[in-house]
C-alpha cells in the first residue's frame, strides 16, 4: 500500500522550526515597491571590478578636473570611453585603515566596515556589501540575484603573520556580516549556471519542488536538534535551498519577468574551462558578466580580478618580470614602478574591454552600458604604503541616464568612499538613508 503524506508547505515547516528563525536577510531588506506596482522598469545593472595591490600613484590621477581633464598614463586605455566614465579622486575607506595591509582593505572594500581580526573563529565583516544591498532589491526579478566571480580560488590557509584568515582576502561580497559569498572561478561553470537559470525545464521544476521540499524538512528537523549557536549555519543552508526553490517555483509558474531580455544564451559561446593564460581567463569572465547582463539573468555582479596579496606572475606583459604583489612593493625604484604601472594599466584595459562590450549591446533606448554602473577600484592606493586614502576609483556607465560621464571629480581630502555607494544604490533603485560611515550622498554623481 502506498502511504500518502500531505506535503507540508514551506511556511508551515518554518513555523514549526520555531520562531527563532529570523526572516532571511535578503527578504527583510527588500523594498516592497517596484515589483508590486507592476510597472515595467528599465533595469539598471551594477558590476564591480576589484583589482588587488593598488596602483602607481603618480601615474593614476588625471590632470585637470571637471569635464576638462586629461587621462593619466594608467587610465589612457579608457580614452575612447572618456565620456562614459567618472574618475573619482580623494575618496578613502576609513574603516579599512586598521589592521593589516591587505585583508581589511579587501573585505571592507564594498562594506566600508572594519573586519574582526580573526583566523576564522569569530570571522565577521561587520557589514553588508554595497552590491548585496542592490541584489536584495532585485531578488526575484531575475533568475539569479547576483553573480560573484573571481580568478583565484579562495587563498590557502590562514596568515599567521598578521592573524587573519585568507578568507578575508578572497571576498568582497558579503550578504551578511558573517557570510562571505562563494565565487565562481571557472567560466564554463558560470556559463552553465547562467544557462540553467535562464532556461528552466518546467517538468523538472515540478519534481525538483518535491525534492527540495524533502530537503527543507530535513534541514528543519536537523535545525531543531543542533545547538543554538550552530543554528545560523543551518539557516544559511535553509536560505540557500529556499533561494533555489524560489527559482524553481518561478520556473514552474512560467511567469514573465518584469522586463524581458533581448538576448538568449548562445550555447556556442560556452567556454571550455579555465584557460591556462591569465589574460584569457579574465576576458572570459568579463564576457560572462556581459552575457549575464545582456540576458538579464542577473543585474548585480562582482568580479575579483585577483585575491588580496595576489602575486600573480605578469611576465606575459611586455616589460614585466615578476609577481604583482612583489612589484607593488616598489620602494620608489624606477624599474619596479614602471612594471607596477604596466600591471595597473593592463587591468584598466580589461575594464575598458567590458565597458566597450556593454556599449556594443543595443537595447530599445540606448545600450547596456547606458543602463549600467561599472565600478573599478582597489582597496588601497599605493601598494608600497598600504594606505586606503585617495583610492583609485572609476565609475563607468550611465545608470539609465542618472549619471553623466566624462568628468574627473576631485573631492575634499578624505571623503568617505561610502558616500559614493549611496548615489549608486540610489541610481540602482534601492536608495539607503545611510551606508556604513557615510556622511552624505556624494555630490556630483547623479544628475
Amino acid at each position, binding site marked *: 500500500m502506498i502511504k500518502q503524506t500531505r506535503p507540508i508547505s514551506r511556511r508551515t515547516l518554518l513555523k514549526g522550526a520555531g520562531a527563532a528563525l529570523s526572516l532571511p536577510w535578503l527578504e527583510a531588506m527588500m523594498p516592497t515597491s517596484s515589483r508590486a506596482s507592476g510597472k515595467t522598469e528599465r533595469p539598471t545593472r551594477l558590476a564591480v571590478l576589484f583589482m588587488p595591490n593598488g596602483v602607481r600613484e603618480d601615474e593614476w590621477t588625471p590632470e585637470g578636473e571637471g569635464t576638462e581633464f586629461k587621462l593619466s598614463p594608467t587610465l589612457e586605455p579608457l580614452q575612447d570611453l572618456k565620456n562614459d566614465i567618472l574618475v573619482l579622486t580623494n575618496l578613502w575607506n576609513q574603516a579599512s585603515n586598521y589592521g593589516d595591509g591587505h585583508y581589511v582593505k579587501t573585505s571592507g572594500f564594498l562594506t566600508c566596515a572594519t573586519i574582526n581580526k580573526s583566523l576564522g*573563529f569569530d570571522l565577521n565583516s561587520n557589514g553588508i556589501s554595497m552590491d548585496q544591498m542592490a541584489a536584495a532589491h532585485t531578488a526575484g526579478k531575475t533568475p539569479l540575484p547576483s553573480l560573484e566571480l573571481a580568478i583565484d580560488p579562495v587563498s590557502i590557509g590562514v596568515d599567521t603573520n598578521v592573524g587573519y584568515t585568507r*578568507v578575508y582576502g578572497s571576498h568582497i561580497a558579503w550578504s551578511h556580516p558573517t557570510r562571505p*559569498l562563494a565565487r565562481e572561478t571557472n567560466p564554463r561553470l558560470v556559463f552553465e*549556471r547562467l544557462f540553467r537559470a535562464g532556461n528552466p525545464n518546467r517538468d523538472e521544476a515540478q519534481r*525538483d519542488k518535491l525534492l527540495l521540499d524533502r530537503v527543507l524538512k*530535513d534541514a528543519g528537523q536537523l535545525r531543531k536538534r543542533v545547538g543554538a549557536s550552530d543554528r545560523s*549555519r543551518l539557516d544559511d543552508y535553509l536560505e540557500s535551498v529556499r533561494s533555489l526553490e524560489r527559482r524553481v517555483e518561478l520556473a514552474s509558474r512560467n511567469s514573465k519577468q518584469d522586463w524581458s531580455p533581448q538576448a538568449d544564451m548562445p550555447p556556442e559561446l560556452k567556454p571550455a574551462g579555465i584557460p591556462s593564460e591569465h589574460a584569457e581567463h579574465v576576458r572570459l569572465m568579463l564576457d560572462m558578466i556581459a552575457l549575464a547582463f545582456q540576458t538579464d539573468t542577473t543585474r548585480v555582479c562582482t568580479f575579483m580580478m585577483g585575491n588580496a596579496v595576489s602575486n600573480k606572475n605578469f611576465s606575459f606583459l611586455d616589460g614585466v618580470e615578476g609577481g604583482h604583489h612583489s612589484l607593488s612593493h616598489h620602494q620608489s625604484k624606477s624599474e619596479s614602478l614602471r612594471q607596477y604601472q604596466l600591471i595597473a594599466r593592463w587591468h584598466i584595459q580589461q575594464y575598458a574591454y567590458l565597458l566597450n562590450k556593454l556599449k556594443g549591446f543595443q537595447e530599445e533606448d540606448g545600450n547596456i552600458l547606458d543602463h549600467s554602473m561599472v565600478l573599478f577600484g582597489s582597496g588601497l592606493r599605493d601598494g608600497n604604503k598600504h594606505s586606503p586614502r585617495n583610492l583609485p576609483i572609476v565609475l563607468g556607465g550611465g545608470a539609465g541616464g542618472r549619471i553623466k560621464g566624462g568628468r574627473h571629480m576631485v573631492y575634499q581630502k578624505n571623503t568617505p568612499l561610502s558616500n559614493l555607494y549611496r548615489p549608486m544604490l540610489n541610481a540602482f533603485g534601492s536608495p539607503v538613508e545611510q551606508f556604513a560611515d557615510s556622511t552624505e550622498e556624494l555630490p556630483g554623481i547623479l544628475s
Partner: protein
Amino acid sequence: MNNPIALESKKKNHHTSKNPEPRFFENKVNCKLPYGIARWAWVILLVPATLIVYGEEDASSSDTKAITFISKYCLDCHSPPKPKAKLDLSRFKTLKSISAEPMHWDRILQILRDGEMPPDDHELLPSPEEQEEFIFRIEETLLESACGDGISPGPAMLRRLNKSEYSASIRDLLDIHFEAGQALPSDGAGGEGFDNAAETLFISPIHAEKYLDAARTALQYAFADTRSHKRFLIARPTDSTSPEEAANRILKEFLPRAFRRPTTHQEIGQYLDLFNLVYIQDPSFIEAMKLTFEAVLVSPNFLFIAEVPNPEPEPRLLEDHELAVRLSYFLWGTGPDKELMRMADQHRLNEYQTLTTQVLRMLDKKNAAKTRNFSQNFVEQWLGTRALGREFKPDQSMKEYDSELEGGMKYEPVFFFNEILAEDRSLLDLLDSDYTYVNRRLARHYGIEGEFREQPKRVELKPESRRGGLLGMSSVLAVSSLPHRTSPVLRGKWILETLLGDPPPPPPPNVPELEESEDPDTPQTLREKLEKHRLNPTCASCHDRIDPLGFGLENYDVLGRWRDEQAGKPIDARGTLPGGMTFNGPNELKEMLLERKDQFVRHLTRKMLGYALARGLTNEDYCTVNRIVEDLKENDYHSHKLVLGIVHSVPFRYKAGRNTDGLESSVKSEFENLDDD
C-alpha cells in the same frame, strides 16, 4: 524517545540504564573509561617531577622571582609605548596572568630556549641557571594551570563537508570513480589553517544549486554503471515485490550509509514518501529512485557533520557513530566504512583497545588510497604546496616546468607522508630521510637514476643525492620562492612558520619588503643587500632569524634543482643564527633543525590536532598538545603515537558540556584516577 535531547537531559553523569532497543542518540556507557585513563596516566606522571621542586614555595615568592626576571631582562624592549615585536610583557604581573595565556607563553619560552632572547647585546644577561630556572618555573605554571583542572573539550561539531570530503564521500557511497565535487566553490581555511574548519565552511546561496547539480551528475554516472548500481540498487520491483517494497529495501540499506548513522523508521518513511510522490507522477522505478537519491545527497544529513549537542553541564563522550565519523574524516577524509559502522553499531568504538585497533587498521597500507586523502589534505595545506599551479606558477622562462613535473612535485610530500603514517616511521623523517617518492619527470629533475613512470614511486636516496626530508623537496622549495628567483627571506620565513611554528611578525607599516631591493645599477649580490639591510636594527630584529635559514637552501633554485653556482659565482649557503649557531648548506641546516626537533614536533602536533578537531586550538588544548609531545619524545617520535595520542585525547573523544555560565567544564576524571595507577 523521539526527542533525544530531552531524553539525554534527564541523565546525569555518563551512565544510563540499558535500553532494549539501542538507538543512535542514546548515550552509551563507556565502562572501559577508567582502564583507558590508566593507560594514559603515566604520561602525566612525567610532569610532577617539576612540581615538587617549587611546590613548597608560596605563590607570592614564585611570582616575585618570575616577574623580577621579566622586568630585569625583558622590559627594556618589551614594554609600552612601543614594545618590540608588538610584545608587551609589562602586563604580566603574576604567574596567574602568565598561565592565562599558555599558547602565547609557549612561544616565548621557545625563543628563550633557543637563546634568541634576551639578545646578546642586552646590558644585563641572565646566568644560564637563572634562565633555566625561569623557563622551568613558567613551564610548570603553564602545565599546572592547563592540566590541573582537567581538559575541556570543544563543543559538538556542526559543519558541512568541504569540497574534497564531499567528493570522497560520494565516491565511496556510490562506488564510482568520479570527482563529484569538482564544480563546487573552493573553501577557505580557518583555525589551524585547514579548509575543514567549521568556522570558515560558509554556505552561500550558490551551494544548494551546486549540490543538486553535483548529486544529479554523480547519480547519472552511478546509475549508468552496472557495477556501481548493483551496489546500491539491491532490489527491483517484481511480480512479488511492489515498487514501494523494493524502494524501501534500497533505502534501508542506503540511508544509514549516506547519513553515516542508523536511521529511524520515520526517516526511511519520509524518503519513501518522496519516492511514491514521484512514482505516481511518472511510474518509472529507476527515475523515481534516482530523484529520491538526489534528495538524500542534498539533505543536510548527508552534507553536514552534525553532532548532537551535549545538554548536560559536564563534558561527555561522543556517541559511537559520531566518533566513527570524526575518525574517518580525520584519517580518511571520507565517511566511515562498514567495519567502523559495525564497531559503532556495537557501541565498542569508545573502548580503548578497539579504538586503537581501528586506528591502526585505518592507517594500514591496505587503506593507503584512503589515508592519501588525509595525507594530501593535511600536507598540502600545512606545507602550502597546494599553491603549486595555483598561487605559484614559475616564470615562463622555466620551460622545463610541465604538468608531469608539477604532478611529481605535488605528490612527493603526499606519498612520503603517507608512508610515514602507514609504516609508523619517525616523524623526524620529515626533517631528514634516506627515501622519497618521485615520478619519471621528478627523478630526472633530481638526477636520480632508475626506471620510473608518471605515478610516484619510492626511491632510496644515496647520501650524495642532496635530497631527503621536506627541505629537499622541490614543491616546498618552489612555493617558498618568487616566480623568477629564489628568496632567502621567503624560505626562511617558511621554515620558521611551517616547520617551527614560529612565524615572524609582519614588517612594520610603510617599511618595504627587504626582498625587492634589486637594483640593477648596484652590483651587489642578494646576500650583500640583505646583509646591508640587517644593519638597520629594526629590520635586524626579525631578519637576523629569517634570512640565514633561507640562505642555507640557496643551493636549490626556484624549482628545487641543485646548483653550485649562480651567475658565475659560487653559491654561499652559510648562515649564522642569533645565539651564534652557524651552518653551511642544507645538510647542516637540517642537522640544526633536528636539534630543535621538539619544537618541530610540537608544532606538527598542534597542526594535526587542529586538523583532527576541525577547529582552531585554544588555550584549553595546551595540555593535550603537551602530553602528546611528551609521549612522542618517549617513543622515538613514531607517527602512530601522534595519531593515537590525538584520537585518544579528551578533545577528540568528548564534547563540551552545555555552556550556561560562560565557563566550560572539563574532564577531571583522568586526574581523579591518578592515585589508583
